[in-house]
């Protein structure tokens, strides 16, 4: 059976062009970039080139790009790094309720360390109100962190406005842009954040490589110690092949951003209207006009999400409930709960996240299968009203 992968916000397959450069690196570039001999200088050259590629993708200077061991580490380095380097100036952090756990759990850890965190609510559409961000700023506020786009719903936050407010009040601003990269235009020149996190495996690059953009002049305390690498911000011998793979993935993502974004938007809209047409009692989650082009989150009344996933999987379709990291937890998604989606409805929510390998045929097949799965599960459900009643 052909498999259909509709979980590209969890991770994306490494694309052929990326794999090729990584393979060449593993085979032909054995050196440590810190070594001064030929092998070292060769590896250094590749890392520097990848750094330039990532930098130009987001409109940054190469010196502002810090390679990390992934997106979660980039978020940690940004938030802990600012918090601990600025604790003389204050102890207050502003974030919002639908952040990824890579931000929320760091904030909870910092609360245990004596920091105070304001978790701003979101509207029913999943949006933070910039006015509320401004009202929450205090003299002791040392960081504002708001994601660019949400992994579960695809909702794009008003980060430009929030960033502007942060600048006016002279508070460092971090944005987790992990889901945004490669899906919507993202430039640090337009947004002007002080810090921004990215991950390679969300853009058809390898797992285990991330980037933290740190605006020139912004200081963070490192998470680990042990060397001069990445300006001392992230010591440890560079993941050379992974970094080079990330550079190549960025280059391709930027080249294809417009055409692929539009193609995915059409496919996503086709999936959405097909579902709404074929399946009654369905609710869309997230501001419809402010979504990543590839993401669709819908709640199916009277049924539970895992049952839907299992039914889809039986027919070769992979989607997800909430974020991949939390799918073992029985609690409804914290993102949907924050948006006021009732618990029962949140339990019946599915995220479809499309990617470059998806076709129209796959989307049409998914709509048909999904309609059958939901119908069957509703027949089993004690909550489903009788036909016609």
């Amino acid at each position, binding site marked *: 059976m052909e498999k259909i992968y509709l979980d590209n916000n969890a991770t994306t397959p490494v694309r052929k062009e990326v794999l090729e450069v990584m393979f060449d690196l593993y085979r032909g570039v054995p050196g440590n970039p810190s070594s001064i001999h030929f092998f070292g200088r060769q590896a250094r050259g590749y890392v520097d080139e990848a750094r330039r590629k990532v930098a130009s993708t987001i409109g940054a200077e190469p010196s502002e790009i810090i390679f990390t061991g992934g997106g979660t580490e980039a978020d940690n380095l940004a938030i802990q790094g600012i918090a601990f380097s600025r604790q003389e100036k204050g102890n207050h952090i502003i974030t919002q309720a639908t952040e990824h756990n890579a931000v929320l759990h760091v904030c909870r850890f910092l609360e245990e360390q004596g920091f105070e965190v304001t978790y701003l609510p979101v509207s029913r559409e999943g949006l933070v109100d910039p006015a509320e961000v401004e009202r929450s700023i205090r003299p002791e506020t040392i960081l504002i962190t708001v994601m660019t786009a949400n992994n579960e719903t695809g909702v794009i936050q008003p980060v430009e406005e929030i960033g502007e407010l942060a600048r006016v009040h002279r508070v460092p601003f971090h944005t987790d842009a992990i889901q945004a990269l490669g899906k919507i235009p993202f430039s640090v020149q337009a947004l002007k954040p002080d810090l921004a996190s990215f991950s390679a495996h969300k853009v058809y690059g390898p797992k285990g490589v991330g980037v933290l953009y740190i605006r020139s002049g912004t200081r963070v305390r490192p998470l680990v110690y042990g060397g001069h690498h990445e300006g001392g911000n992230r010591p440890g011998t560079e993941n050379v092949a992974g970094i080079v793979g990330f550079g190549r993935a960025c280059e391709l993502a930027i080249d294809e951003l417009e055409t692929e974004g539009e193609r995915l938007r059409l496919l996503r809209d086709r999936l959405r209207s097909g579902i709404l047409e074929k399946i009654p009692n369905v609710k869309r989650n997230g501001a419809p006009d402010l979504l990543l082009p590839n993401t669709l989150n819908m709640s199916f009344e*009277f*049924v*539970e*999400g*895992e*049952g839907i996933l*299992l*039914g889809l999987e*039986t027919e070769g379709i992979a989607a997800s409930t909430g974020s991949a990291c939390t799918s*073992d937890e*029985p*609690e*409804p998604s914290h993102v949907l709960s924050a948006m006021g989606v009732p*618990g*029962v409805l949140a*339990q019946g929510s599915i995220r479809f996240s499309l990617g470059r390998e998806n076709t129209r045929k796959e989307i049409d097949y998914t709509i048909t299968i999904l309609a059958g799965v939901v119908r069957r*599960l509703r*027949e*089993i*459900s*004690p*909550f489903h009203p009788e036909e016609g009643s």
Partner: protein
Amino acid sequence: MNIEAPYSDKVMDHFNNPRNVGEIEVPDGVGMVGNPVCGDVMKLYLKVKDDRITDVRFQTFGCGAAIAVGSMVTEMVKGKTLEEAIIISNKKVAEALDGLPPAKMHCSLLAEDALKAAIEEYRAKQEGMADVQSEHHQED
């Protein structure tokens, strides 16, 4: 490489082809347990004659395991006496399905609890009817 399946073939069979789904129009006992916010609710309907379960139906709002245990428990109790049925434990239901993943063992409790609740409701009704009958006798 071996990809570990989330559920046994038997669980998948009961998920894909659940037995005894639905309601009983005039049930002798009904049990409903669970909490929809936590993602699992099971409703079990019994038809009882001479202390024996003659028919049983179930409905589940929940994950694949919750659906499979509902289906399995209906197969296990059909034709059994209430005494035989009420001692069916969640472990027995899980075993009959060739096991459940550890994180899903709590789902098998739904089956045990819904069955017990339905039997208890039946017995409470019987006692109530007995009381009413004896009251009638007193009035006579």
